[in-house]
């Protein structure tokens, strides 16, 4: 592992907040070693080594079909919902193997929040959308306060405080996506996974989400899959570049990480020519 302090991007706007100056030996939130995810015994991604640090935004970029989303969904065991999916290797969350046989995926998902590609609010009121997670987790405390805190953290409170009892379907797409972020924050996770959270949004809504991400970095580790390289360059601290290879006589397409480094290095001085070709727009 390279020293995250030394490798931190030096240029604005990517300066991580003070809390990011943790010592290099700090236990990462996620540590992946030799991870292989297979669908029906065909590997979709291989040799995945990835560290996710607290108070950092980690971006996963690469061409379509390279397995970025597959790796993301390993982190909260959403791959378990796909029939025939299997995960080998180590996925450590604060040092605990989340694929150990005694671990219930439901318990993992309580600790790891997720935001999806398309905003997916529940067909309920704004209030009930936020309150759903705390309710099923049996969280103690005043629900009104929990809802307000989550909406404030997602910078949505002022826009919706007068219509909490109205349907979430009446909101704009960007508001719905921030509601989904607020919903994930309401259960107090320490990591938020985001699967192309802006791909269904217009540039203005996208900018608001990106501002929000930089704000949330103070308190959370964020892992974001994005197709938008500018977005990765704008918001992330560390970037993993994925590629897809044809394996075994071109029968399978398998994703791998080509390079994982500080975002600045990936975009300005990548070690691998494939990374350079991709980030400079020569391919992909």
């Amino acid at each position, binding site marked *: 592992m390279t020293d995250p302090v030394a490798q931190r991007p030096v240029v604005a706007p990517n300066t991580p907040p003070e809390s990011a100056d943790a010592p290099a030996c700090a236990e990462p939130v996620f540590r992946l070693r030799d991870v292989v995810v297979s669908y029906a015994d065909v590997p979709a991604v291989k040799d995945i080594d990835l560290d996710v640090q607290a108070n950092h935004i980690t971006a996963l970029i690469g061409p379509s079909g390279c397995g970025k989303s597959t790796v993301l969904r390993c982190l909260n065991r*959403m791959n378990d919902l796909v029939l025939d999916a299997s995960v080998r290797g180590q996925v450590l969350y604060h040092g605990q193997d989340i694929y150990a046989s005694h671990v219930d995926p439901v*318990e993992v998902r309580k600790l790891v929040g997720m935001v*999806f590609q398309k905003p*997916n609010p529940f*067909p*309920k009121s704004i209030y009930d959308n936020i309150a*759903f997670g705390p*309710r099923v987790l049996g969280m103690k405390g005043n629900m009104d306060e929990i809802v307000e805190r989550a909406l404030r953290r997602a910078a949505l409170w002022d826009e919706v405080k007068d219509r909490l009892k109205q349907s979430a379907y009446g909101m704009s797409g960007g508001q719905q996506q921030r509601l989904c972020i607020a919903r994930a924050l309401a259960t107090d996770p320490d990591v938020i996974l985001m699967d192309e959270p802006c791909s269904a949004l217009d540039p203005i809504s996208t900018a608001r989400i990106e501002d929000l991400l930089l704000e949330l970095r103070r308190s959370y580790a964020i892992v974001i899959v994005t197709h938008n390289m500018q977005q990765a360059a704008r918001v992330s601290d560390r970037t993993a570049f994925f590629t897809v290879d044809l394996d075994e006589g071109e029968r399978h397409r398998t994703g791998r990480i080509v390079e994982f480094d500080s975002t600045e290095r990936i975009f300005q001085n990548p070690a691998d020519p494939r990374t350079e070709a991709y980030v400079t727009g020569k391919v992909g």
Partner: protein
Amino acid sequence: MRIAPTSQRERVLGGLFRAALFVSLAVGILTLIWLIFSVVKEGWPRLNLDVLFHFPSSNPELAGAQSAIMGTIWVVGMTAVITIPIGVGAAIYLEEYADRDRWWNRLIELNIQNLAAVPSIVYGILGLAFFVRGFLGLGQTVLAAALTLSLLVLPIVIISSREAIRAVPDSIRQGALALGATQWQTIWRQVLPASIPGMATGSILALSRAIGEAAPLVLLGGLTFITFNPEGLDSAFTVLPIQIFNWISRPQQEFHVLAAAAIVVLLVLLVAMNGIAIFLRNKYQRKW
């Protein structure tokens, strides 16, 4: 480039097509209106509260359908109590839990489709052998009739509930699971509430079918001359379609008039049930 006028031929064809569609609609609606009109006209002399409040009698002047109306409410109400939980439960299992790759799940699915097409008289025979006499030996009671009608409408309830569950987008389930909800919490708090309008509509339409069924209950021995209301699940009973059938088969013209009046009562009951279905659907949709 000049914009060409629509050719005469295309305009005529378009008009003909439109007219044909309108005629199809009109045939259905007019037949229905004619049926309702002729029934109301025939039953008009007896369309008063006596039909609702008098018990059957051999004197057509005094006879009414009170015991049949109450019997229908008892039997169909009990059918709802039996069918809806079982039907919704089966639908949840098939949609949310069953592994489609297993042959027994596919067999169950196929059989439910087939059961929906079985003639109702067959359920009557089954009910007679199984509920009235054999295994359960309930006799000719409200409960035996409700169990038989439950078998009849269960496939319809399951199929419509499955469709309602399937209409709930997967993104809702994923969103709930990603928050740490268990599969059961996801189903109970997200999938079921979102599919209630569809389930309510399907269930009430299924019960509307049960309300008009005479054949299986005739076979069960739903007695046709009952001069008292059901007092419980073990009561003897009659229902409206059987009462109507009985009156129409009598030689006296006065009973035919009475039958027409009872048909109107049955129609009003059906319209009311469909009204409830629409009300429920709209009520739950507005909440979103």
